[in-house]
């Protein structure tokens, strides 16, 4: 079988990359991170890059993305991004310090860790591992379900830097914090940011992550984010994905929720060639609430794939998933949502909905709920729809003098609104509304005040 041979070849490229650089990576890193590397690379080798044979990756083409010669930054990149010149994102009329990742490395070389509102800490993951080893060790690579993704093992094997965010107990951060995740390089580049967030007991925080590509090279990014929510914490995370169509990304997020914690995650995918979002939620305390939203607007040959896995392990928790997509041209999307309810998780409420509009006959969506329920007193629902624009509504609008083009736009925009309205940060909601407006009109989705070319 020639295909297998070929795939082994792709894999050996990454193993070789590891073997040739492991010493260099380890010396610069911390023992807490290093101790996971060997078992991680073995695990990756055993499980391989997910192919379409893997049920959960059936509709995603990762092979093409991985089968390319990439440059890899083993040091904080030499690329200087002068933010005042290139990137004046004013979404955070909220916080003055914007946190930047460049090709997976923390952007600020001098202030590697900073205080937020005098209480929380944000900055370089590597620096945090060195400065706060005890805290770091308590959480790093401790998420449930990490072993389910071979690409997480690949990330763990190479993990060098990323964002560390720590909110101690009883701290409520008023302003959202924005993380700008940039890919920029003259050469095709592979980046693997590793991020770790801890939201302490009774604490509250909001994070906005904006993913951008700043140069036309091919990119592959394989990121991992672990989030630990302690008792009674509230965490909102918004991810705006706006990379060019020559970029491929696999973003795996692991939420670990403790008693009475509340989570809101909203992933908005505007551009990106291949996008795979893995969202794992592990509910390990009672009276938790998890809200997962997603919106994907795709066209051309884009391949956008959302996978969720919610594990209800304790009673009296509620999870709610709502993903919507508009697919144009020959784009292919998938939504695969798994809800697992353990035998002890009585009085669980778990809802899931996925609605799609297909604008052409070539566009495809594969929507698949997976329920695995072992408790008997459970409220569960799931529903998936895919269809065209409502012709009756279209005629109604046109009969009032609205052009067909504008009427279509209004209906599509309205369709996205159900997800956008769940953005609790007003300035961000306005901005995303504006970007979605441009995206649906086929214009560049560049923030007004942002000087960079996202796509």
């Amino acid at each position, binding site marked *: 079988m020639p295909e297998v041979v070929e795939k082994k070849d792709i894999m050996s490229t990454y193993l070789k990359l590891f073997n040739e650089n492991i010493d260099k990576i380890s010396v610069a890193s911390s023992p807490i991170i290093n101790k996971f590397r060997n078992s991680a690379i073995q695990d990756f080798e055993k499980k391989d890059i997910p192919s379409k044979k893997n049920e959960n990756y059936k509709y995603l083409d990762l092979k093409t993305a991985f089968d390319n010669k990439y440059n890899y930054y083993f040091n904080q990149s030499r690329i200087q991004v002068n933010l005042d010149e290139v990137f004046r994102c004013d979404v955070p009329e909220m916080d003055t310090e914007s946190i930047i990742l460049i090709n997976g490395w923390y952007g600020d070389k001098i202030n590697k860790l900073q205080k937020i509102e005098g209480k929380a800490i944000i900055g370089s993951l590597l620096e945090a591992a060195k400065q706060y080893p005890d805290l770091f060790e308590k959480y790093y690579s401790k998420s449930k379900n990490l072993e389910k993704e071979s690409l997480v093992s690949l990330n763990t094997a190479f993990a060098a830097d990323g964002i560390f965010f720590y909110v101690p107990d009883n701290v409520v951060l008023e302003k959202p914090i924005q993380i700008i995740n940039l890919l920029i390089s003259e050469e095709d580049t592979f980046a693997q940011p590793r991020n770790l967030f801890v939201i302490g007991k009774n604490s509250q925080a909001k994070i906005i992550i904006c993913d951008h590509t700043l140069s036309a090279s091919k990119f592959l990014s394989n990121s991992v984010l672990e989030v630990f929510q302690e008792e009674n914490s509230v965490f909102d995370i918004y991810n705006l994905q706006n990379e060019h169509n020559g970029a491929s990304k696999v973003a795996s997020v692991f939420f670990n929720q403790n008693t009475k914690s509340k989570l809101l995650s909203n992933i908005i995918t505007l551009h990106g060639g291949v996008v795979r979002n893995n969202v794992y939620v592990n509910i390990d305390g009672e009276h938790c609430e998890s809200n997962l939203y997603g919106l994907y607007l795709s066209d051309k040959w884009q391949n956008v794939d959302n996978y969720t896995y919610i594990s209800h392990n304790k009673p009296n928790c509620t999870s709610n998933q709502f993903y919507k997509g508009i697919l144009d041209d020959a784009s292919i999307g998938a939504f695969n949502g798994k809800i697992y309810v353990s035998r002890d998780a009585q009085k669980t409420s778990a809802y899931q909905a996925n609605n799609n509009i297909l604008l052409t006959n070539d566009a495809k969506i594969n929507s698949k709920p997976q329920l695995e329920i072992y408790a008997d007193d459970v409220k569960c629902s799931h529903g998936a729809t895919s269809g065209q624009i409502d*012709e009756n509504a279209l005629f*109604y609008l046109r*009969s009032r*003098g609205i*052009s*067909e083009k504008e009427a279509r736009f209004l209906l599509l925009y*309205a369709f996205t609104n159900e997800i956008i309205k769940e953005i609790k940060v007003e300035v961000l909601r306005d901005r995303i509304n504006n970007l979605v407006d441009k995206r649906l009109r086929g214009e560049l989705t560049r923030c007004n005040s942002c000087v960079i070319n996202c796509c």
Partner: protein
Amino acid sequence: MLKIIDLHAKINEKEILKGINLEIKAGEVHAIMGPNGSGKSTLAAVLAGREIFNVTKGEIIFNGKNLLEMPPEDRARAGIFLGFQYPIEIPGVSMVSFMKTAVNEARKYKNLPPYSSSDFLKLMREKIALVEIDSKLTNRSVNEGFSGGEKKKNEIFQMAMLEPTLAILDETDSGLDIDALKIVSNGVNKLKNKDNATIIITHYQRLLDYIVPDFVHVLYNGKIVKSSGKELAFELEEKGYDWIKNEKL
């Protein structure tokens, strides 16, 4: 203003309009009555440009323009308004942005500059008062969760906003309580002038007490089989449609 000549229309190979002839002049009110399924809504939809109906024969001339060549939006901008028998709910599209887009597209068509936000809101307030619609409704998504009567009032509100030359009201009276019926009729009467015309599709003579028609037509099996003055409505109310069917046979 409007001239319909030998109009035939089909849907799914089924002929529904079988040779309609009708002429309407400025300043007139025409009522169209007829049994269920006779083709009244189909005629209204064909006038508004609904593409699922296939016009196989005939002509519609509206103020010198060949209506059948125009897409629905151009017909609307040229002054045709259809009050829907079943108004459509459009979640997520606010009444304000809907009406603002519609009004400004019509202005663009007439080479007028778009309304500023404040001028537009002023216009909205005026029309809300004119048709006595609850202003809370205009803060919601288009028809979403509106009651049957509220949807009908909303049609009249949209008509007031767009000031059409020819309004076609398809059973706007069904589902209205007596007070609402008066309000809606009042709205229609206030908007009436010597330069515009109205087609009222209804099953009930009652509405015609409020909006007095110049002509009453009976549409039966895809054809206008009888046209007369407003007294025809009384006769229909009394005797039903059978005598006309029999007369025809």
